[in-house]
Structures are given as structure tokens and as C-alpha cells.
């Protein structure tokens, strides 16, 4: 029992939770934007994976983590652009396109990776961290929370920023209207298509960033299909958070803990089969849904394309 409460274990667990949770946080916040605007973005898994791949390749070739992150966001946005074009602009079925994009990106990134690196999986160097002065000295929490790549802190800052944006800005009002009553937004002179497209692109950028973080920092390498359903977990997070960014943060940390449990246990020498641990996050999603399903609320116009004059 001592092993579980040792400092090394706790530090490894929390550090791992943050590392594993950041991609979920970024993607979850991204999905939240889409869902607010009334687009169910099933393609987010593909956007994350594209971000992971592009992020890794750019970081690998350039040696710069930041360039990798920018590349990852760009990769996610490229996939999102297809989604915005087909699902928002041309009002095609969001689910079909979302699945198609996820499948296509899974195949494409695996294919490209194969042709680039054959069967080798090159690693990136250790990620540079920014230790927050003063805070990093706190026992357990210091090394666990305040010695991360700067992107982590930026991701957390995004939470209050989005919270402000949703409630206090024209962007927030427009998103709310696009998801709740697109015809009202249209009648007030704002293009629903543009609002939703922008939302989907923002989702792509954040999901891509999350994927890039996963590859560059979390794993240090790219493995085909490496997102392994993280995008779908992000959808659940956004669904349960009901438009509140803070809840996405809490949810992402919670899932991060369950993902980090394997490594943390290995640190303490406890051998738990990885498959059992891999079941944890998904079991948790199901459990959470069963317990709180009745409380999850989605915008009325979610998933429905908006066609002007189509009643």
C-alpha cells in the first residue's frame, strides 16, 4: 500500500495525467466549439491523427517542437477544411463525412509513415520543459504540474479565455445562435455557414494541436493509429461539459489519470497488464454516461445542416 502513496508514484501519476490529458483537453475544447455551433464533429479523431503525424514529421525534420505544433494545428485544420466544405457549406451528412475522414486519415498517415520511415520508428529528443519558477519546488505537485512544455500552460489558459469568449463576446453569441437557432442568426445578418465553418476550423486546429502534443511530447514518436479513440473521448467530454470549458479541463484530467495509471504503476514495480489499464478510460466513459446521461444536453440544431429557406 505504501508504494501507491509514495512520492514517486504520485508525481509520476499526476505528471502522466497531465501529459495524457492535454491532448484530450485541446481536442475536447475544440469539439466544444463545433458542438456549440451545431456541428457534430465525428471527424475529430482523424484531425487529431493528422495533427499527430504532421506535428511529428515537422518536428522531426526541423528539430523544432514549436514548428511541429504549428504544423500539427495546420494538419488538423486541413482535415477540418474538408469537413467544413462538405458538411457545412454543402450540407452533407456530418456522420458519414466524419467517419470517412477518420478512416481516410488513418490509412493515409499509416501509408505515408510507412513510405517515409519504412518499419523504423524514430524518436524525437526529450521535450524542453518550462519549469514555472517558484511553483516547481512544491513537493510532488511541483514536478508533476509545473515542469511541462509551455504548450501545456497555454492549453490551460485557453480554458478561461474560451469561457470569456462564450459569454462576453460577439463570437460567443454567434456560436450559441448557430447551434441553437441557426435561422435566427441568419436573420440577424450573420452567415451561419461562415460561423460554423470557422468553428469547425478552430476545432481542427485545436484537435491537430492535441494530436501533435500526443506524438511530440506524449510518445516522442509517431505510430499509426496512435490516437486510439482519443478523439471520440474528446467528443464525450464536450458532450458532458455542456458548453463549459472548465468541465472539459476537469474531465480531461480525470481521463488523463486513468491513462497514466499504467506507467505510474510500472514506476512502483506493480505489474498490471496493459490491456486491463487500457480498458479504464473507456469503461469510465461508459460509467459516466450511464450515471450522467440524462444531464448531457446538446444544442437542438446539432448535427443538422443549415440550408437557408429550408423549413
Amino acid at each position, binding site marked *: 500500500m505504501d508504494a501507491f502513496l509514495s512520492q514517486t508514484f504520485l508525481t509520476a501519476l499526476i505528471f502522466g495525467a497531465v501529459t495524457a490529458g492535454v491532448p484530450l483537453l485541446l481536442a475536447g475544447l475544440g469539439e466544444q466549439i463545433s458542438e456549440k455551433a451545431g456541428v457534430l464533429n465525428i471527424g475529430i479523431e482523424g484531425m487529431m491523427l493528422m495533427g499527430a503525424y504532421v506535428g511529428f514529421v515537422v518536428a522531426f525534420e526541423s528539430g523544432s517542437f514549436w514548428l511541429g505544433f504549428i504544423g500539427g494545428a495546420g494538419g488538423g485544420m486541413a482535415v477540418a477544411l474538408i469537413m467544413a466544405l462538405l458538411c457545412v457549406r454543402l450540407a452533407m451528412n456530418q456522420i458519414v463525412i466524419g467517419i470517412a475522414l477518420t478512416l481516410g486519415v488513418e490509412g493515409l498517415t499509416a501509408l505515408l509513415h510507412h513510405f517515409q520511415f519504412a518499419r523504423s520508428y524514430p524518436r524525437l529528443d526529450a521535450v524542453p520543459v518550462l519549469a514555472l519558477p517558484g511553483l516547481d519546488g512544491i513537493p510532488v505537485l511541483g514536478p508533476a504540474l509545473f515542469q511541462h512544455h509551455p504548450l501545456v500552460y497555454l492549453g490551460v489558459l485557453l480554458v478561461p479565455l474560451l469561457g470569456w469568449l462564450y459569454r462576453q*463576446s460577439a463570437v460567443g453569441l454567434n456560436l450559441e445562435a448557430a447551434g*441553437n437557432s441557426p435561422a435566427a442568426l441568419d436573420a440577424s445578418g450573420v452567415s451561419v455557414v461562415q460561423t460554423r465553418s470557422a468553428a469547425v476550423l478552430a476545432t481542427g486546429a485545436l484537435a491537430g494541436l492535441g494530436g501533435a502534443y500526443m506524438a511530440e511530447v506524449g510518445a516522442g514518436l509517431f505510430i499509426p493509429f496512435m490516437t486510439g479513440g482519443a478523439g471520440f473521448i474528446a467528443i464525450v467530454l464536450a458532450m458532458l461539459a455542456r458548453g463549459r470549458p472548465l468541465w472539459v479541463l476537469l474531465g480531461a484530467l480525470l481521463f488523463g489519470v486513468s491513462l497514466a495509471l499504467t506507467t505510474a504503476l510500472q514506476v512502483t514495480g506493480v505489474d498490471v497488464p496493459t490491456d486491463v489499464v487500457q480498458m479504464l478510460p473507456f469503461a469510465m466513459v461508459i460509467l459516466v454516461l450511464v450515471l450522467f446521461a440524462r444531464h448531457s444536453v446538446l444544442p437542438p440544431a446539432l448535427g443538422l445542416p443549415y440550408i437557408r429557406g429550408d423549413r
Partner: protein
Amino acid sequence: MTEVRQQVMNDSSASAVPAISLTGITKRFPGVLANDAISLDLNAGEIHVLLGENGAGKSTLIAILAGMQQPDSGEIRVRGRPVRIGSPRESLALGIGTVFQHVLLVPSLTVLENLMLGRSWWRPLDRRATLARFQELSRTLGVTIDPDAPVGRLGLGQQQQVEIMRALWRGEGVLILDEPTSMLTPQGVEDLGRVMRRLASQGIAVIFITHKLREAYAFGDRISVLRLGRKVGELPPERLRAMDEAAATHEVVRLMFGTVEGHRGDSETLLARGRHRRKGRVDPATPPVLTLRNVSTHAASGECGLTDVSLELRPGEVLGIAGIDGNGQKHLAEVLAGQRPASAGRIEIDGRDATREDVGQRREHGLSYITDERLGEGTVGPFSVATNLVLKEIGQPPYWRHGITLWQRINELARRTIRQHDVRTPSERTPIAKLSGGNVQKVLLARELGHATRIAVFNKPTYGLDLQNIRLARRRIAEGAAAGLATLLISTELDELLELSDRIAVMYRGRIAGIVENPVAETGSDIELTLGRLMTGAAA
């Protein structure tokens, strides 16, 4: 209503350039010529009424002015300058504000937030400036609304006032009101009339769309009549002023139909005089076939549930349910049909408890529900007319045997029904969504009013139909009642209720606010006024 009608004709504007001038506007949809070379002048300071039945092309014309649709040909001039209105934004920028038939506000946002919608996204929200403009417009309209109330909590009349504010937000140029009275009480209609008059007197060009002749005469300075996409006539202010209501009516009917005699039925429906034409033959001693005792339902957010509703319905009786849309009528219909559980109370059919029976069981007991959402829930759009005719009997003989579908019998039934009820469809296998609203309603009526039906619940049976189909549907209701059918008629059209009902119950916020005999027993009391008061929750 007539005292509202002051002659505030701003004579200087009559000679000036029209606020909007339309020339030869044509718009074609697949299979329909919605607007056929329509030319209209809309003058500042004038209430211009566009009158016409459903499908006359009014809504298309409005959509064009609001930037929702582009005309195929024709010219639009705003204050003399030719323009192209490519989007709602451009329309608003030209000073054209539109209030659509269905409320277009975000219910989860407050009044002020709704009014701030549409600002440039890069600019921070300026609540103070918005509030100032809000107060300014409140004075212009002469209304008081709480700016911080979520719009979903406001009544429909107030929501409409918010929409008018939004329409006028960018400058008071042109205000288009598309069928604005359909959601209002008689008193609400008068309030709206006052607001329109006030705005016109301040130099705004008001366009008022309606299919009700009475409102057109009461509020309009000028009346243009549309029929089948064409403008068939116009009554300019000087002629209109010289006419009394009867003469104006006569003239409009002549414009719409060529002669008065040729289309007596249509013109009567249009005139909506609300005369009770059925002879009630209900003996109050007969036991009720349908009884509701203190029935309540649970309501999700944005819905209006029932609270403590008690009603009785006898064979051969038509019980009208009046009320502004959204006061629990939908729940009442659904709880009767068995689509929605009652959270409290008791529903009896023939005195037997039927509270827990489902749709199928109630149908077996002879209860039918004719929904107002014909395509939304009444039918499955992509399925054939034939399949839709048996939608409520899936699995039952004679169309199914041991669960196997006997398509031949279903198609036979469909062909028979199509002939019998004059359903205009290419074939019984045509997807029902391709049929016009009137024909879909014929299919629904055929399905629901079979020989075994003893209780019929109609929800807005003539909503969205053209005059001919309105008349057909109303005649069917009257015939059904004459044959002994117990009928519950939910409608927002007062004239329809007055024409068909023996008694009218008024719903307000999920309760029965009162029940009125039709026609009223004592002479001299104004039934419309009574009903209107009940609709707003005031005591009768």
C-alpha cells in the same frame, strides 16, 4: 379595430420616391412559378398590405426582400437606386427589416443578447450602446420589455416586439411583417396595429402580410392582392379611404376571384366571418364518450405541459380548443392520442379508464389523432402514399399475415382511397413528401377517419392549406360531427373554431382558462372579446 385606423397619410411621401420599388419580380421554383412579374411600390409612411391565400407568393416576395432568395428576373430599387439583395446582411444594411412568420430569436439568450447578434465579431460587445438603442426603440414602439430576460421566457407578443426592434435596429426605413398576427390574441392584434400605425406615422414604410381580409382593411393604407404568384390588383389609399368595409371586401374578393359568385366558398372562407353554421344536436344527457379528469403532463424545457385539465366530450359534439400556439395544445393532443404519458389525472373512454393505454389500444377504442405536423410526425416522407396509409396498422390483418407484408392488398387499398378521396398523386407508390400539403392532409384524414373512428382529435387541421383544401377539411369535420363523431378541434384560427364548434375551451399556460358556449347564449356579448381575454389569462 377601426378606431385604430387613423388617416395619417404623409402626403409629402406620396409624391416622393418610393422607399422600395419592385418591377417585374419573377421567381421560379421546381414545378412552381412562385412570383410572376410582380411590380409593387412601397411608400414611406404607409402601411401596405399584401393580401393573398397560402401559396399566393407572399412569402417568396418577402424572402426576396429579406435577402433569403434571389429573384430570377426583375428589378429592385431602394429609394430609387437599383440594388441586388444578396444576403440578409445586405437587406438589413439597406434599412429593410423583416419580422418572419416564425419567431427567429435564440431562446437561450437574453433580449439584449439577441439584439446584439449580428455585430462584427472582432468588436467587443457594447452593452451600454445596445441598451440605449433598445430604450430608444422601446419608446418608438411604445412597449416595455425586460432587456435581461431570456427570450424563451417572454410571451409570443413580446417576442414579436423584440423582433420588430431588431428589424428597425439599423435605421427605421422599411419594416416587413410576415403574417404577424397568426400567433397573437385579438387584443395582441390590436396592439400590433397601434405599433404599426405609430411606426408609419414616423415615416417608416410598413409592409404587412396577411391572409385575413379584416386585418387588411383595419390596418392597411393600401392593399395589394396576390394570387397564384401574380399581383391581381391594388387598392390605393384614396380609393380605400372612400370605401366602407363591405365595399372594400367586395372589391378584394372581385380582384381575387374575378367574380363574387363563382367562388362563393373561397370568398366565405377568406372573409372568415366566423358564423356558426352547424346546428348543435348534442343532448347534454348523453354520457360523454371521452372524459379528462385533472390531467397533467411533464414538460421538457421550452414546452408547455398540461396542468389539471378536465374536459368532457359527447358523441356528435365539436369541442373547440382555442389559445395562442404553445399553451399546451400539443400536449393535450398527444396525451389524448396516447403518445405522451399523463403524469397525473385520468382519461376515460366510454367511462372506462384509458389513462395507461397506448396509441394502438386507443385506436382500437375508436380514438384517432390528426396531427398538425403532417410531414413531421404524421407521415414518413420518403415512404409511399400506400405505406403511409397503413402506418398505424403495421402488422395487423388484413394487410399482414403472420407478420408477412401483403403489399398487393396495401396497394389496392391505396388505389381505392386515392380514387375515393380525390388525392392528387401520380401513383400510390409515390413518396408522400412529393404531394402538396392539401393532398397529404387528404391521405391523413382518410387514414384517421375510418368507419371505426368515434373520437377524433384534430390539431390545426387547416394550417398551411390553400382555400379550397381548408374548405374541404372543414366540411369533413362538420360532416363527421353530424354523423355522430365526437370531435376535439384544436385551432389557432378563431373563425374556424367559431364556425365549427359547439363549445370552445380556451387554453392558457397549460390550463383550461374557461369554456364558452358557441354561439353565446345571451345576445350582445362579444364572444371574440371573451375568448381573447381568456387567451391572455384574464378572467372572462
